[in-house]
């Protein structure tokens, strides 16, 4: 039982660190948002599962489950709100240049 807790805590820490790294090194708003969405949902839900396993079957587990459920709903909505805000502000998404295949707009440039 303890090894499940250790495993999920380890997963949470790894996803958290990689998410933070992604937010620091990625080039524009949308890609940063992808990394932050990974970090917030997967790592926090891993930590919640670890906490639920450690607490055993009690009232605490039910309350953490309610928090996890609310987070499971509110986190993608928050990500969508930020993405829509950036999209409505007409921020242009970053694109990889110098590839072998060129699209129409790159040919026109």
């Amino acid at each position, binding site marked *: 039982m303890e090894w499940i807790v250790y495993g999920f805590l380890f997963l949470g820490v790894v996803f958290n660190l990689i998410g933070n790294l*992604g937010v620091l090194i990625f080039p524009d708003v*949308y890609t940063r*948002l*992808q990394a932050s969405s990974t970090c917030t*949902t*997967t790592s926090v839900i891993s930590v919640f599962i670890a906490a639920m396993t450690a607490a055993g079957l009690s009232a605490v587990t039910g309350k953490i489950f309610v928090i996890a459920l609310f987070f499971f709903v509110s986190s993608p909505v928050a990500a969508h709100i930020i*993405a829509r805000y950036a999209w409505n502000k007409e921020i242009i*998404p970053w*694109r*990889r240049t110098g590839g072998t295949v060129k699209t129409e707009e790159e040919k026109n440039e």
Partner: protein
Amino acid sequence: MNVITKWRFVRILLTTGSLFIGWILFSGNFVPASLIIGLCFSFAVAVLTYGIFIDEKEADRKGLLPRFHILFFYLIYLLIKMYLASFKVLFNVVRGHINPRVVHFRTKLKSDLARVILTNSITLTPGTITLSIDDDHLVVHWLDSKTTHSKYAGLLIKGTMEKMLKRTFI
């Protein structure tokens, strides 16, 4: 009593029920005083906001009530897929090789609730984020894009999720 008035009462009742379930989950105790106060306030809020919660035109029972056993399997599938996609994004971050694109596609789902669940699932699986939705037209930002062809991209992103949701909401 005509149909519109009847539908309005049903909407107020449904909104009250949903708010009351939320009250029980968040307060977490079953003292009679708490339950009575919660019922009163959820009814008061429901009278004010039933028009926003359920639209007047959405008079479709099957669009509002999902089939719960398929929804349960859908949630487990979503959780597993979330972990798998997270590992993909993790390798993308470590290798530093990304190819972000914006793709457009359409969905076949009819009811509003099913569309909301589909958009949230797309945002929840890392690697894709819904930027905007207009009726049945979705704009999705894709971190590691393999194609920009609309139909193929839609198949890759929402494939199994849309099939399961279609069976859930008929």
